[in-house]
């Protein structure tokens, strides 16, 4: 090939747009640093909005596959959308480099040679929180999550490593606005820790109301990294301080690639990168390295797969490798929200929870 085409379908409108935009910006930043080339070949990134709607995502993907005949796909934020577009992508033998969505199906039984996840498996961040809460000896935990499969997964991920007492599992309506009733229950249960997984605006509402209710005095708040990243902090501000969360990346991680990335991102977009941005950035680097590896011959799918598996790029999160199911084996860190040197409210890395942690589904993956 003399040109590489990347299909980028992501959530760029609607309430979930912030995440998709961050992935896109991270990806585009890398492209800029690579002078618009992937593996030395001129590259074109075709961006489409999925509106957080599986049907639309499917449509957009079909177009990129059949009309534009892209070499790589990436961008999708949400698992349910990933599951909707996956079959078509794989059938078309196009490589999908997921910069966020990491459904358990694709980690386990439905793992696929054409699917790579450069972020994490959904459960990992929940597991990390569970581990930490367990290690710190919290005795009485309440869990709050929406009543849908993602929420149930979060609970089982958390409980995989937390073995203490869960006094209450509260399932809320997807898209709920007001959590007063739940908070009253929490207050009555007097837990020492609360773990919540409430994506998007739900999480923002919850944290604000949790703090206003004065519960932060007696109960320590925990969440996976994506409920406590820059987008949420920007909306909640100071009340978030002191909240613990887990992540495989943080903007203050001490390695050369990350410093370069964070500085460039801030310069380019005038804000701190989120973990989504880091994942988008890594996805581009990963494509670049693989294309270089196969010397631009992306038509050789076997070789390209080998090259991708080999992971010949330096990730901003430090070192990691791909498992046999093409999901990362990597470290997970504890972060806490506080003020940084410049007085901004943001995440600070506190320590490592897991080292070289894999996901729980890899055993079900028959791919070798």
């Amino acid at each position, binding site marked *: 090939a003399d040109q590489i085409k990347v299909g980028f379908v992501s959530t760029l409108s609607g309430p979930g747009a912030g995440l998709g935009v961050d992935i896109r910006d991270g990806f585009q930043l890398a492209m800029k640093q690579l002078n618009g080339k992937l593996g030395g070949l001129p590259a074109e990134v075709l961006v*489409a909005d999925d509106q*957080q709607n*599986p049907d639309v995502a499917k*449509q957009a993907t079909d177009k990129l596959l059949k*009309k534009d005949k892209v070499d790589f796909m990436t961008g999708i934020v949400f698992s349910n959308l990933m*599951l909707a577009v996956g079959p078509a992508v794989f059938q078309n033998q196009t490589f999908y480099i997921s910069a966020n969505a990491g459904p358990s199906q694709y980690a386990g039984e439905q793992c696929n040679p054409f699917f790579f996840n450069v972020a994490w498996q959904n459960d990992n961040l929940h597991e990390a929180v569970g581990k930490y809460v367990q290690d710190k000896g919290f005795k009485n935990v309440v869990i709050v999550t929406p009543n*849908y*499969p993602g929420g149930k997964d979060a609970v089982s991920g958390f409980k995989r490593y937390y073995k203490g007492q869960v006094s209450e599992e509260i399932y809320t309506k997807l898209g709920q606005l007001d959590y007063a009733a739940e908070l009253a229950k929490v207050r009555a249960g007097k837990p020492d820790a609360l773990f919540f997984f409430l994506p998007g605006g739900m999480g923002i509402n919850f944290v604000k109301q949790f703090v206003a209710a004065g519960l932060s005095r007696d109960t320590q708040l925990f969440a996976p990294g994506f409920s406590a990243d820059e987008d949420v902090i920007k909306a909640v501000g100071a009340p978030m301080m002191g909240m613990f969360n887990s992540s495989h990346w943080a903007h203050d991680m001490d390695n050369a690639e990350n410093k370069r990335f964070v500085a460039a991102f801030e310069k380019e977009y005038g804000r701190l990168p989120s973990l989504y941005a880091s994942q988008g950035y890594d996805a581009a680097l990963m494509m670049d390295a693989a294309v270089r590896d196969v010397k631009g011959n992306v038509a050789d799918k076997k070789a390209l797969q080998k090259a991708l598996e080999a992971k010949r790029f330096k990730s901003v999160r430090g070192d990691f490798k791909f498992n046999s199911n093409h999901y990362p084996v990597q470290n997970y860190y504890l972060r806490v929200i506080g003020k940084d040197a410049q007085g901004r409210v943001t995440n600070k890395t506190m320590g490592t929870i897991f080292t070289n942690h894999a996901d729980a589904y890899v055993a079900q993956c028959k791919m070798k």
Partner: protein
Amino acid sequence: MAFHRSAPWQPVAALVALLALGALPPLLDAFEQSYYLGLATRMLIFALAASSLNLVLGFGGMVSLGHAAFLGIGAYVAAICHQAGIQQGLLVLPLAMAVAGLFALLVGAISLRTRGVYFIMITLAFAQMVYYLFVSASAWGGDDGLPIYERLQLGSFSLASDAALYYTALGALALAMFLFGRLAEARFGRTVQAIRENETRMEALGYPVFRYRLVCFALGGACAGLAGALLANQSGLASPSLLQWTQSGTLLVMVIIGGVGYLYGGVVGAIVLLGLEELLLSWFAHWHIVLGLLLLGIVLFAPKGVAALFGRSRD
């Protein structure tokens, strides 16, 4: 508003359009644009869904904001059948229509006690209930939806190829439009249209108004169910997002854009809206602004919808 009546040129135009549409797959193939076949199929399916709403709304005068529920139920029937290993379309499609139609019958039986905006909202309420139930039904994939890996068989005719699905959708739409056209001019159609105009008067003329409305509502629901089953086969997924109220809103917008109560209003609306979306989406990141402005333009300058611009298909 007067009764629907086809203009004399309409059947001819419809036939010409049908022939042209029939020639589309080989044409697209010849120009290597077969991607657009998927888009065209989608347009046809949504044309069917919007037309089914037009039956309820334009002819029956019932503004339903829960029509997506029937579409979604049809899709889920198809997906659940797939999950159970039932691939025979001659079974699945009628089943989808029946289930959606029966559900519409139930919803209608309760909702049709109310009028106007109350009706709008109670239909919305039912759709929301269905939405939340499917979101939390983990056996059927919950929020992830229920995938369909293999398309239906119609007898021994497989829908696996895109062209086959396209022709099926085209056939379903053509049949539905033909039937709707007959229905609109037959006694039943006149009756529901008159009820739309003045319900108490119809009651005072001895018509059991409730029954006619209910049947009309259920018919619309059944056709939406058929569209849903086809849609799920096309996209390979039945997901709760099909049931969201915004989906009902989109169907409504299609009908209004096309022209409420014009036989082909739903068809025109679906094609215009999906076409606009396709055009704008690739052209401008903030395309919603443009779409919004276009819709405003339609309201202000073509208040009866696009179909109304083409001569009189009514009065």
